[in-house]
C-alpha cells in the first residue's frame, strides 16, 4: 500500500506539487483535485463552444461567370447586416447574387449547452438557461463567503483542510463567474475557425455533462461543509447582490438600462426610510412613555393615537395626507381669516401650506409606524422589572433620570429586535409612497415599465433591489442584537 502511494505521488507530481503533504488522504484528494479541474475545464470549454451560433449565417453566392460559392459569415445582427472577412475584388462583383439564410443545423442559442438541455427555441429557453447559468456563480459566491468566514473564525493559519476549500473556490468561484461572464462575448468567430463540426451541439453537451459529473464526484465529500457554510445568512445577501450585478453585466439590455433608470429611486427610498425611521424612533419613544404614563390625560392621548392609527391602512393614511390634508389646511386658513383680520397672515400661511411629496411620505410613514413603534417601546419598557425604577427613584433620581440612565438602556435591548423588524417592514412598505408622486424605487420601476412594457425584467430587477436592501438590513439588525446582549 505504501508503495502505491509513492507511485501515485510521482505520477501526479507535476500537477499537484503544492499539495504533496505526506498522507494517503492527500493523495486521494490529489486525484479528486485533478478530476475536478479537468471537469471544470471541460464544462467551460463545452459551454463556450456552441455559443452564439445564431450569429452565423450561411450564404450562397452566384458570380457572373456562373461559378457558385457557399460561405459562412458571422452576422452582427441576424438577417439585416453582415460582414465578410475577406471581401472579393471589386471587378468580380459585377453580377453577384447572394442568398443569405441562417445556419440550419444549429440547435443551441446564445447560452451555450445549457439551452440545448431545455428547449429547441423560444424566449423561455433563453430565460431558463440564463437562470441556470446564474446559479453557478451564486454557489461560488456562497462558497467564497463561507471560505473567508471560516478563515476569519479559525484564524489565518492554513489547516490541512484548506485544500477542499481551495478546490471548490477555484472551480466554482472562478469557473462559475466565468460562465456567466462569457455571455457578453461573441464566440461565433471561433466557431467559423473550427468549421461546421463545432456547430454540432452534442459535442458541447456531452462534454459538459462529463465535466459536470467529474465536478460532482470530485466535490462529493465536501458537501457537509458546504451545507454548514450556506447556513450563514450573510451569504444570501451577497448572493442576491451578486445576482443583480451579474444581471446587469450579462444582459446589459435591458437590465443595465433598468438599473440606471431605477438607481436614483433606491436613493430616494433610502432617504425616505432613514429620515422617517429617525422620526419614528422619536414618536415611538414619546408614544411608549405616554402609554405607561400615570397621568390619565397623557395615557388617553397616546392610546387614542395608537388605536386610531393602527386601525387604518397605511395606504389610506398616505392618500389622506396627500389629497385630503391640503383641503384641511384651506379650511383652517379660511376659518382663521374669518375669525379676525389680525389672523389674516396666519390664515394665508395655512392656505399656502402645501406638503412636498417627500414631506408627505415621511409624515405618513412616521405617523403610521410611530403607532406600532409606541407599542413596541411600551412593551419593552414595561418588561423591565419595576424594582429597577424603584431602586433608581430611591437613590434620588427623578423619573426622567431613571428613564434615561436605568430603564431605557435596559429596555433598548428588548426593543431592538422588534424595532429592527419594523425597520425592515418600513423599507418594504415605503413602496406605498409611490402613490404620492415620490420617485422611489417602485415608482421608477413603474415609469420604466410604462415606457418599455418590459414588465418581467423591470419587476424582477426592482424585487431584487428590495431584496438586497431588506436582507442586508435584517442581517445588520441581527448583528447589532448579538453585540448588545448582556448578562442578567
Amino acid at each position, binding site marked *: 500500500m505504501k508503495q502505491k502511494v509513492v507511485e501515485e505521488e510521482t505520477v501526479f507530481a507535476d500537477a499537484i506539487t503544492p499539495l504533496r503533504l505526506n498522507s494517503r488522504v492527500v493523495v486521494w484528494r490529489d486525484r479528486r483535485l485533478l478530476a475536478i479541474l479537468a471537469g471544470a475545464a471541460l464544462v467551460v470549454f463545452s459551454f463556450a463552444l456552441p455559443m452564439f451560433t445564431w450569429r452565423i449565417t450561411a450564404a450562397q453566392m452566384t458570380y457572373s461567370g456562373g461559378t457558385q460559392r457557399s460561405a459562412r459569415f458571422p452576422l452582427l445582427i441576424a438577417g439585416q447586416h453582415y460582414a465578410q472577412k475577406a471581401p472579393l475584388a471589386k471587378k468580380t462583383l459585377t453580377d453577384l447574387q447572394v442568398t443569405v439564410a441562417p445556419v440550419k443545423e444549429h440547435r443551441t442559442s446564445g447560452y451555450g449547452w445549457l439551452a440545448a438541455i431545455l428547449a429547441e427555441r423560444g424566449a423561455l429557453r433563453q430565460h431558463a438557461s440564463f437562470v441556470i447559468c446564474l446559479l453557478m456563480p451564486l454557489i461560488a459566491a456562497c462558497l467564497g463567503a463561507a471560505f473567508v468566514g471560516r478563515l476569519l473564525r479559525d484564524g489565518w493559519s492554513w489547516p490541512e483542510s484548506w485544500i477542499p476549500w481551495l478546490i471548490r473556490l477555484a472551480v466554482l468561484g472562478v469557473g462559475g463567474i466565468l460562465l456567466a461572464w462569457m455571455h457578453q462575448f461573441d464566440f461565433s468567430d471561433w466557431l467559423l475557425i473550427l468549421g461546421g463540426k463545432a456547430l454540432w451541439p452534442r459535442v458541447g453537451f456531452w462534454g459538459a455533462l462529463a465535466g459536470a459529473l467529474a465536478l460532482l464526484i470530485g466535490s462529493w465529500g465536501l458537501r457537509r461543509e458546504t451545507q454548514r457554510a450556506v447556513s450563514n445568512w450573510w451569504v444570501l445577501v451577497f448572493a442576491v447582490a451578486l445576482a443583480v450585478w451579474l444581471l446587469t453585466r450579462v444582459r446589459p439590455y435591458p437590465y443595465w438600462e433598468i438599473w440606471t433608470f431605477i438607481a436614483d429611486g433606491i436613493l430616494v427610498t433610502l432617504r425616505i426610510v432613514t429620515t422617517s425611521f429617525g422620526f419614528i424612533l422619536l414618536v415611538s419613544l414619546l408614544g411608549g412613555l405616554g402609554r405607561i404614563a400615570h397621568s390619565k390625560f397623557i395615557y388617553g392621548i397616546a392610546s387614542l393615537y395608537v388605536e386610531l392609527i393602527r386601525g387604518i391602512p397605511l395606504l389610506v393614511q398616505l392618500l389622506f395626507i396627500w389629497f385630503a390634508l391640503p383641503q384641511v389646511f384651506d379650511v383652517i386658513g379660511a376659518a382663521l381669516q374669518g375669525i379676525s383680520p389680525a389672523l389674516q397672515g396666519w390664515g394665508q400661511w395655512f392656505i399656502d401650506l402645501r406638503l412636498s411629496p417627500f414631506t408627505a411620505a415621511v409624515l405618513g410613514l412616521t405617523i403610521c409606524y410611530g403607532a406600532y413603534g409606541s407599542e413596541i417601546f411600551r412593551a419593552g419598557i414595561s418588561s423591565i*422589572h419595576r*424594582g*429597577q425604577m*424603584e*431602586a*433608581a*427613584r*430611591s*437613590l*434620588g*433620581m*427623578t423619573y426622567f*433620570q431613571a428613564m434615561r*440612565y*436605568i430603564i431605557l*438602556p*435596559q429596555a433598548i*435591548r428588548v426593543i431592538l429586535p422588534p424595532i429592527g423588524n419594523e425597520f425592515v417592514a418600513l423599507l418594504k412598505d415605503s413602496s406605498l409612497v409611490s402613490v404620492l408622486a415620490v420617485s422611489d424605487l417602485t415608482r421608477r420601476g413603474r415609469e420604466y415599465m410604462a415606457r418599455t412594457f418590459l414588465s418581467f425584467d423591470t419587476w424582477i430587477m426592482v424585487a431584487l433591489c428590495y431584496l438586497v436592501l431588506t436582507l442586508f438590513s435584517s442581517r445588520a439588525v441581527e448583528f447589532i442584537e448579538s453585540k448588545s446582549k*448582556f*448578562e*442578567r
Partner: protein
Amino acid sequence: MGDHQSAGHSDPPIIQIRNLRKTFHHGRIVALDDISLDIPKGQVCVIIGPSGSGKSTMLRCINYLEVPDSGTIIVDGITLSEAKDINRARMEIGMVFQQFNLFPHLSVLDNITLAQRVVRKRSRQEAEDIAMDLLRKVGIPEKARAYPGQLSGGQQQRVAIARALAMQPKIMLFDEPTSALDPEMIKEVLDVMLQLAQDGMTMVVVSHEMGFARNAAHRILFMDDARIIEDSTPEELFNSPKEPRTREFLSKILH
C-alpha cells in the same frame, strides 16, 4: 458613613409618621391603618410581623415609593408631599431591597457611582473614590469591574448596600434584605448591617432575622393587620411579649 452621631434622643425624631393610611385596590384592602411613629436619629428599628401585615408598605411609604392615601411623613425636617421635596428627602434615605435591584447593564462600580454623579453632581473621580471605599467596607473591592450577573446573591446585596450608602444618607431602610439569599450568604450581609448599626446609622429594618434583632436593634415593632400591635425593646418583646398575638407569632418563628 458621613455621620457618627450617637443616638441622642433630645433632637426631634428624624422620621415622623402621623396618621398614615394606605389602601390598595380602591380601598378594598387596607395595608396601613392610621399608623403614627417617631424614630429618633441613630435608632435601629426592626419591624417584624406576618406577611401581609403592612410592614413593607410602611417602609416604602417612608421614601414615597408608595404614595399614602392620607397622613403626613416628615423626614429630616422635610414634609413629603411635593415631588421636589420627595426627591430631596430620598437623597437622605438609602433603601435596600429584597431582590437587590442592582442595575444589570452597569458594572458594580457604575452601579455605585451613577446616582452620585447624576443626583449629587460629583465628579467621576470623587464618586469612584467613595465607591471603592465602600466596596472595601463591604468586603468586595475586587468585584468593582464585575457585572451584577456575575456576583453571588450575598455579594449583590452588599453592592446594593454600598450603592445606597454612596449617597451618604442619614437613614437606611432595609426591606427584607436577607430573604432572597442562601442561608450561607445571610451572615455576610448581616455583618455589614451590624457594622452599620454600630457606626450609628439610623436604620429601619423589615426582617425575620431574630439574631440581628436581638444583637443590633434598639427597638422592635410588631405589626399585624395594618397596625403596630407592639412597640418595645428586643429584650422585652422576646422575653415577655405583652400582646397574645405577638406571643402566638413568636412561638411560630422561634421554634
